């Protein structure tokens, strides 16, 4: 069995938004030399998500609007215990809806994605360097 690990670093220039990281993951897979296996891609930060969907700007905006309805950013709210930094609360909740990680099958040395599937990084608390972990195991 082979294994491969890489940290990818990203800075999203605004507070919230989507980056397509599919090419970076494909490069990792090429470097790994793994032909058959599983590729885990996860955020290492609890205020961002990794998911697969179509890379389409209007849809990213719709996602953001929808997430904002489900978990509004409210810097003036107070929490039950008062311990949470309130301005971050919505980012934890939005990330929960989008998800922390995806697992993608590796077949014949390629990421096995559906026609429109792209690997996307959703930042909810940007403007700083954050990390995505890529771990591939297989043969």
């Amino acid at each position, binding site marked *: *069995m082979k*294994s491969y*690990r890489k940290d990818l670093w990203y800075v999203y220039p605004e507070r919230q938004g989507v980056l397509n990281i599919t090419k970076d993951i494909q490069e990792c897979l090429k470097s790994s030399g793994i032909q058959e296996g*599983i590729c*885990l891609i*996860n*955020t*290492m*930060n*609890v205020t961002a998500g990794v998911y697969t969907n179509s890379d389409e700007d209007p849809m990213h905006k719709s996602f953001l609007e929808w997430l904002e309805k*489900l*978990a509004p950013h409210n810097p003036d709210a107070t*929490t*039950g*215990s*008062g*311990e*949470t930094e309130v301005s971050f*609360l919505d980012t*934890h*909740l939005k*990330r*929960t*809806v989008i*998800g*922390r*990680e995806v*697992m993608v099958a590796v077949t014949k040395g390629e990421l096995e994605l559906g026609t429109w599937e792209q690997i996307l990084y959703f930042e909810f608390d940007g403007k700083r360097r954050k*990390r995505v*972990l890529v*771990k591939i*195991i297989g043969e």
Partner: protein
Amino acid sequence: MKSYRNEIWVEVPGRRGLINITSEVNDCVRESGIKEGLCLVNAMNITSSVFINDDERGLHEDMDDWLEGLAPHEPVSHYRHNKGTGEDNADAHLKRSLMGRETTIAITDGRLDFGTWEQIFYFDFDGNRRKHVLVKIIGE
């Protein structure tokens, strides 16, 4: 390739509650002897979740409030599932869908490869009974 399987049994007192299971999963990784691989941790019950986030009490209380707002427990009669089965846990199924069934963590140098604030939690939405979490590790 090696594989390892274990069950973590938990009992959450009260209808809803959350337990940090990171140290139990760490024990599994150590016991497995696997140095490089993947670790799957999933709830074996469809009214609870396994997820990763920050271990901070205010956040957990806020998450519970948020889930209760999106999928309220009451009125119990509001849910078709409850009417059909005579149960009162339809909200638990919905809450678990939002929080997710499982998480997968990379294993590197024999350790869970975590970000700074990442901890593994079990969130039960229909507690007061013994339930279990599956840990499956594969690698070398």
